[in-house]
């Protein structure tokens, strides 16, 4: 079982967040985002030691690892991946709170909160529980049928074929270099996409408050981004070590 992480965010009025409500939920998101291409390629740049666990460019390898996770095997590895994933979620919560890169949307009377951070990760939370985290612009779309948690034992990565198109955005064996340019490009494309997402939500009346200011916010230049990312990362690490 994955040991789920809780985060304390904020100064003064501290908010506590659970990163996913259950082991199954966390595992499903790991498989749908961190272990499904093309998003997996980029998570392998963000999560330390990712490539020690699995090759993000090899579907067979990704299948093998994801299948094992759903069988309750390779517990050390699944925990390492989850911890890396949770770190990015925590950093995103921290940065999005600090910089007001957050907004809320309502659908059918339910409120969901969104935030984006300096690594380009988009997180979604309801109440005090993070329910999703992804590099949305690189995410494989949802599969064309419902797959329950119990089905996952036989189909651990149901989205693995939804992106597989000839000459797709990222070639089959594409592996972004693990460097700052790649990390900035991940952020740039994510922020670009999120600005459209917020604008759409605003036009559709699903969001209000400070949301209109986010699409107006220019995408950070690499230099601006580097400063923010480094400071945020250091501050987040400090607050983590304190807690």
């Amino acid at each position, binding site marked *: 079982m994955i040991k789920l992480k809780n985060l304390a965010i904020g100064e003064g009025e501290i908010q506590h967040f659970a990163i996913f409500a259950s082991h199954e939920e966390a595992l499903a998101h790991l498989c749908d985002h961190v272990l499904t291409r093309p998003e997996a390629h980029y998570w392998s740049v963000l999560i330390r030691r990712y490539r020690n666990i699995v090759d993000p460019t090899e579907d067979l390898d990704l299948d093998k690892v994801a299948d094992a996770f759903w069988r309750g095997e390779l517990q050390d590895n699944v925990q390492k991946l989850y911890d890396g994933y949770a770190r990015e979620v925590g950093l995103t919560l921290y940065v999005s709170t600090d910089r007001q890169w957050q907004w809320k949307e309502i659908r059918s009377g339910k409120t969901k909160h969104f935030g984006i951070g300096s690594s380009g990760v988009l997180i979604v939370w309801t109440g005090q529980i993070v329910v999703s985290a992804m590099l949305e612009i690189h995410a494989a779309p949802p599969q064309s049928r419902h797959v329950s948690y119990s089905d996952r034992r036989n189909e651990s990565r149901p989205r693995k074929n939804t992106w597989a198109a000839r*000459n797709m955005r990222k070639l089959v064996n594409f592996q972004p270099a693990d460097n700052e340019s790649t990390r900035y490009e991940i952020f740039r494309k994510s922020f670009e996409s999120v600005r459209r997402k917020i604008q759409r939500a605003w036009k559709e009346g699903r969001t209000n408050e400070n949301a209109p200011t986010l699409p*107006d916010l*220019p995408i950070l230049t690499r230099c601006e981004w580097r400063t923010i990312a480094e400071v945020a990362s250091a501050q987040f690490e400090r607050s983590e070590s304190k807690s």
Partner: protein
Amino acid sequence: MKIDHYDNDPKQSPTAQSLIQGEINALVTFWPDIRDDEAIGPEVAFDLLAIWAHLRRFDASTLDENLISRINVLVADDLEAICEQALRFPFPLDWPDIASRLDEAWDHVAEEEEVDELEHSLNEHFELLDRASLVAYALADLKPTTCGGRRLAGVKDVLHHAESYLADHPDVFLPAAVFASSMLDSYRHDLHEFDERLWETTLRHRAIQELVDEQQNPIAIPKMNRATAQLLMDGTLVGEATELRPIPVLQNDHNPLFGERVMEAFAEFDGEADIGFVELPSLSSSIYFEPQYAMPLQEPLNAADASEAPLRRWEQLRFSAGKIEWLKGKPVGVAEDAIIDIEWNSLSELVIQTNGLLRRGAEYSVKVSWKTETEHVVAEAESSRQLIPEPIRLFASQCEGPGQGDVLEITHAKFLGETKVWECFLRVPFK
């Protein structure tokens, strides 16, 4: 009470311009770093060209000059490298298949979160095609030496495949309708005249917008048998109406395009009118007709007079210009240009009303020109851009009409799509 919708003030709306301009600094400053990077360079170059072209859709006075200058200078200075990298961007050859799979997924998504992701995926898929078409436009416009005719033709082939899918399945992209529509409303209103090829890159926005309008204002497909149609063509049936109604016209493989609503319109006529029949292009060999009401020009009326004005037979109306011939039983084609021979006086007013399939609230332009023995005048009255389906009134103030015997051309080719036909009615009340 739970809120389920915010009534946001449109005045506070983030603008399309700021959305697009907000990418410039990041792209321009990043490009030198990754100019030769095979992994990142293509994507950044692709975005650079797409943004460069996208900015041209807006009225320049609504943009930030400094930002425009920055991207213009970069694109001019490093044109070859940018274009070469942009051509390496792997636009998905099976873009339609991906769209189709996304559409199928609607039947199975159960979680709210997945709905959100699916909507986002469709929006991003639409955005990808939009950017690709802007890049193709930029390549054609900038003419880099690295992008010869064959390479550009290859890009266009791929895009044509995707565009055709979208034209046939605009419903798949309904989740993108609000965004597409808001962008479209922000573009310069004379885009088609400013740059026709650039205007063509916005057709997909319009296709989705029109579909939304059709769904909000459902139009019944009228039916009429051929015998009745023939009577109308022969002029045997003449009705009366106080108000000309837009007649819905939809293409259909098996039914003529007439119906009860045509007759209803006739029944309300307060005078006489000719009805024109226009053969629409068909997917099969069948012949289809569309009724056209033709009424004469007259002196401009104030609103009160106009509401009471009867309608008169317009004897001289003739559609031609190659693809269309004026009624009286002649087979005709699609109206690309309509030529009307009329008697005209300088105070004449022409009102063009569409058949209702155009987007309500959108602006469309109609170019009107006329020829005399010595000159060819092209006029586009300021007032020609009014909201559809409000009548577009031309010649109200700026222009004198052509003299007797001159040819008046009403051009509305821009309303024509590959699979849909936007016809105009000519509606001119008179005393």
